[in-house]
């Protein structure tokens, strides 16, 4: 974290509301991106971002070191995203077809795809993977998405999710194994 952010956090801890607004501006895109990658839904990601900063405001006294503000924010966002995933289990998720990506999800195809057929195949397969991931328990899904979509290291995921690195490793292994089993021959 930069010195500027640390200074803003210190000011915010002393009650400076403008410093808080500056911190929201500095982190909101990152929190939104993280939430989107965990939930794959624009509206849910927006809700997580807003709720995260409202909670950060109310719980700033729990932050011991201003240096760890980013992990503090991400952890609050992750916990709220897990709550949303748990609530989602009871309702249908807007994914009309197993072979179609939901409207708000985009795929970066520019670098890897060789042909339009291959692109379509990859898109369909990704939709299947995401559909299968919906059925994973929230913490396994979150670990998988933070590691594989967001590209965080296991250590970073452990820090955000507040668990040992071994748990991250185990959750990741279980989640990937379940996906492999679920997708079976379509991965061949």
């Amino acid at each position, binding site marked *: 974290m930069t010195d500027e952010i640390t200074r803003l956090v210190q000011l915010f801890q002393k009650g400076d*509301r403008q410093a808080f*607004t500056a911190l*929201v*501006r500095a982190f*909101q*895109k990152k929190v*939104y*991106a993280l939430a*989107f*990658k965990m939930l*794959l839904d*624009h509206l849910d990601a*927006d809700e997580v*971002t*807003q709720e995260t*900063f*409202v*909670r950060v*405001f*109310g*719980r700033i006294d729990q932050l011991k070191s201003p240096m760890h503000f980013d992990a503090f924010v991400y952890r609050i966002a992750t916990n709220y995203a897990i709550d949303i995933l748990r609530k989602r289990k009871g309702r249908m998720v807007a994914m009309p077809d197993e072979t179609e990506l939901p409207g*708000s*999800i*985009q*795929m*970066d*195809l520019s670098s*890897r795809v060789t042909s339009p057929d291959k692109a379509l195949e*990859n898109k369909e*397969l*990704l939709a299947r*993977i*995401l559909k299968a991931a919906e059925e994973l328990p929230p913490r396994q899904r979150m670990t*998988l*998405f933070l590691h*594989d*979509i967001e*590209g965080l290291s*296991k250590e970073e995921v452990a820090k955000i999710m507040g668990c040992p690195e071994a748990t991250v*490793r185990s959750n*990741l*292994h279980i989640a*990937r194994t379940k*996906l*492999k089993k679920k*997708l079976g021959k379509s*991965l*061949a």
Partner: protein
Amino acid sequence: MTYHHTTPLHGDYLDRGLSTECAAEVDRHIADCPDCRTDLERLRRITTLLKQVKVPDPGQAFFDNQAEMINGRLDTAGAAGVPRPFEYLQETRHVLRTLIRLAAVITLLFGAFYLSDVRQGNGPRKWMPGKTGSRYAQTEPASSWVAPIDPQTGINGIGSPSLTTSPADSIPKPEK
């Protein structure tokens, strides 16, 4: 190395999280194991595709609006009074936990006090408010708790066959 030894390492192998020696060993195994090769290829496909999920850019106007919404929510809730979910429950839980601990300690103390006398064979103590010097007074020894036995039926005062007589004794014998 077998298939079962190698499978749990596939994730770390792809993430380059294995030591050089371990990765070399997995490499050697994969060369001879078609199952592991298939497994690894499937895993690689999943991780590669997941990495291609892109976050859409909702635009600067969205983020400006979002920041205003956050400030608006804080203003509505009051600067200091942002509610924390289940905070009141956590406080209640803390008080309840303390009360339960206290009750457990009191129960243990009374239990120990009561049992210590029973084990010594002194019988239970009874509350004697009139006595000076102590609040409890010894009434009668534990051996005197046994209800008196009717010599004719062999049944004690509370209606159970006496333990001092055999059940056969309590059955009236038919007259010859």
